[in-house]
């Protein structure tokens, strides 16, 4: 084998409080499809962001065709021949297919676009890719799947040396997936190096050449697809993490406090029914796109109104976050920085927000009581800070998350919905957040963990529901194993887990 097209050596990247990449080696040869696997937070996307110029590596070297390069920004990375097809679409809806494909390099001299030349070129590209769309069509009229294909067409319209595809089939039907695979095979024949990120093991078996598994910011194994049985891959993905202290289970289970019946939301989840019991920690898990997060938001009354019903203590829950809060719910969203905290406001102000009315008379706040109560809570959740008046954006991820939890403790919420409670949280704070959850449940609350972190779900939950493609496909009790969950979540045919 000659020089690999892409060769990343000893790449490290540090974020405040987290070592996101720890001396990662990764290479792709010409005409190879190299699959990248790992859980959320394992470091896959950080590695790809380093490659595509979004982040600068703290250490390590990147070589393209043997030449050392440093992608300074995404535009520079594209010049180097590194192209990315993102999971979230990055097309401009109002522009035509052709304009989107040529957006960064519109043909023609001077400021005027040579539209005829552009449409002609795009027609050829689309034809060669077997995509049946007119170049003049505005993008917003296309289906999501077709948009995804346009996204790919854009990435390869200009000569790509390295093509990064992040979950490219997430919104494709099986026929469209076939089209995509045909495109990938053609690119292989042209000698392009493809990095393919996916959770779907069957897909990897059919398109990949080699597999690299990442865990906790490290490359924990690179192997040829033929050697990679599902069991081997699952084992590598789970591994043995740094030993984490999970609190002992509370182990009581009372009456149902929350009942969900036949809840459906088009495009997200379908026919979901379950009960949450008093003092129970219920886990709901699934891979990206399984509908887990959408379900969490629906339960809290946020987003489009689902069909079906949610009852708390026998009463039907109206669809709004304010109603959910009134019924005693608290929500720790998965996107802490955009949905959990007002980053420019002080710790105290963030922490007090949902419970202001508890400390007010006729709309006037009792500030002394607020300061006292928030100080107390900051201690209770083990917040490390210099002052309650500090802007919250300066805290570490773990400490920020403690504030989000404290918001609901201040409001005495009895049903706590945790979505990815430890995402982007360092190991030490993780154990503290687990302890907080257990304490609340021991004190009479009930909790649901919406989490794709299987180890956490197994370690924390009394009962676990597994979702796949919007449906609950299995229920397991305490003592469930991670490989059983994973098998259910990815839909392996021979899955033995679950009643």
């Amino acid at each position, binding site marked *: 084998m000659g020089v690999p097209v892409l060769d990343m050596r000893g790449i490290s990247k540090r974020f405040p409080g987290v070592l996101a990449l720890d001396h990662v080696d990764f290479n792709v040869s010409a005409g190879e499809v190299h699959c990248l696997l790992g859980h959320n937070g394992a470091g896959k996307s950080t590695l790809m962001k380093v490659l595509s110029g979004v982040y600068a590596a703290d250490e390590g070297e990147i070589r393209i065709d043997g030449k050392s390069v440093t992608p300074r920004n995404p535009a520079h990375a594209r010049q180097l021949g590194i192209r990315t097809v993102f999971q979230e679409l990055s097309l401009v809806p109002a522009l035509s297919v052709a304009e989107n494909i040529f957006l960064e390099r519109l043909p023609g001299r001077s400021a005027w676009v040579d539209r005829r030349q552009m449409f002609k070129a795009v027609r050829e590209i689309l034809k060669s890719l077997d995509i049946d769309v007119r170049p003049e069509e505005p993008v917003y009229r296309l289906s999501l799947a077709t948009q995804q294909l346009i996204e790919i067409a854009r990435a390869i319209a200009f000569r790509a040396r390295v093509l990064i595809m992040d979950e490219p089939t997430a919104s494709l039907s099986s026929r469209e997936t076939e089209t995509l695979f045909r495109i990938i095979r053609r690119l292989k024949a042209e000698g392009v190096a493809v990095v393919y990120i996916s959770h779907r093991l069957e897909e990897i078996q059919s398109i990949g050449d080699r597999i690299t598994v990442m865990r906790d910011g490290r490359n924990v194994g690179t192997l040829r697809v033929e050697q990679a049985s599902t069991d081997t891959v699952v084992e590598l993905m789970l591994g043995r993490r740094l030993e984490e202290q999970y609190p002992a289970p509370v182990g009581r289970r009372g009456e149902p406090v929350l009942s969900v019946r036949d809840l459906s939301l088009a495009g997200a989840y379908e026919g979901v029914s379950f009960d949450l019991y008093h003092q129970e920690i219920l886990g709901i898990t699934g891979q990206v796109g399984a509908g887990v997060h959408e379900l969490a938001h629906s339960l809290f009354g946020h987003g489009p109104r689902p069909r079906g019903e949610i009852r708390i203590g026998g009463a039907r829950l109206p669809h709004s976050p304010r109603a959910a809060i009134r019924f005693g719910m608290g929500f720790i969203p998965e996107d802490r920085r955009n949905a959990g905290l007002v980053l420019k406001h002080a710790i105290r102000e963030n922490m007090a927000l949902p419970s202001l009315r508890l400390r007010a008379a006729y709309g006037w706040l009792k500030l002394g009581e607020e300061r006292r109560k928030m100080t107390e809570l900051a201690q209770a959740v083990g917040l490390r800070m210099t002052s309650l*008046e500090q802007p919250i954006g300066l805290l570490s991820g773990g400490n920020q998350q403690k504030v989000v939890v404290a918001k609901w403790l201040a409001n005495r919420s009895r049903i706590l919905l945790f979505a990815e409670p430890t995402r982007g949280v360092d190991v030490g704070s993780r154990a503290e957040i687990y302890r907080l959850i257990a304490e609340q449940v021991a004190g009479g609350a009930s909790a649901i963990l919406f989490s794709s972190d299987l180890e956490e779900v197994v370690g924390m939950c009394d009962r676990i529901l597994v979702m796949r493609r919007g449906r609950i496909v299995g229920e397991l009790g305490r003592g469930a194993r991670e490989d059983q969950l994973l098998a259910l979540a990815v839909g392996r045919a021979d899955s033995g887990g679950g009643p």
Partner: protein
Amino acid sequence: MKERGNAGAWYRWEAWGGFLFLAVACLIVGLLKPRFLSPANLLTIAQQASPLLIAAVAQAFVVMAGEIDLSLGSAAAVISMVAVMSAKSLGTVPGILMGLLTGASLGFLNGIVVTRLRVPAFIATVGMLTYAQGIALYLGGGVPIEFPPPSFAWPGQGFLGPLPAVTVIAAMVLIFVHLVLTRTVFGRHLRATGGNRLVALLSGVHVQRVRLAAFVLSGTFTGLSAIVLASRVNSGQPYLYPSLPFEAIAALAVGGISLRGGEGTVRQILLGVLIFSAMSNALNFFAISSYVQQMITGAMTVLALLFSRWQGLPRAKEGG
């Protein structure tokens, strides 16, 4: 509030540094032109600053909610016309009440268009700017309405002891708004909504109602500002103060309030307005023409924004 390290000192500098700058600048002007610092002139500055101060408060409510109101200028014109008309037929006090009510109604209309019809505030209020200008011209047939009852002149021209009445009114507004912003559930909800609407929604804030309320409050305070302006010129004017919304926004920016919402204190509003008023007064002492003054004011608005961004750089980066 007790434990304060270096970070605490920095916060205090952020809060009061602007006033220190203003004081030093005034001192320098005073050394060159001693009459600038005379009590009489300082009272003049206070009197001249007051209507803008009230309008800046009006603008601050929407800006803090993460919106903007460009309709202040012609809204003020309509209000002045309605107030003087009503004062002529019903008396001064009903006239003032009608003015406030008109302001609140225009604000309500803005708020409904923005929150229910989901028109961006920028567009909605530019529409209102033109619409209200039309009403103002229609009401008087294109000419001012004059000769309100004599008592109508008091808010804008009268005195309470040594202090201009308008300044006392502005001071009361500032105290009231300070209390609302720092001590009420509504003030917190307003800051949260402007700071991050999604977070506010998921924390149980009735976001739509808060945004609507911000517009109604903005309209009401615009009403008060328009009434003191009308009282000062003793008439309802179809072109009362066209640059009012822009001066108000500029004052907020100079005071250091982020136009992205969620931030702002009464202290900052006061600082921004005082800098503007003191500067234009000082420029008069140096016999600089009002045309050149306008050029300076415009340039300063942009410079102040650049300055506050430079100051806030380390934090802005952290916030992503």
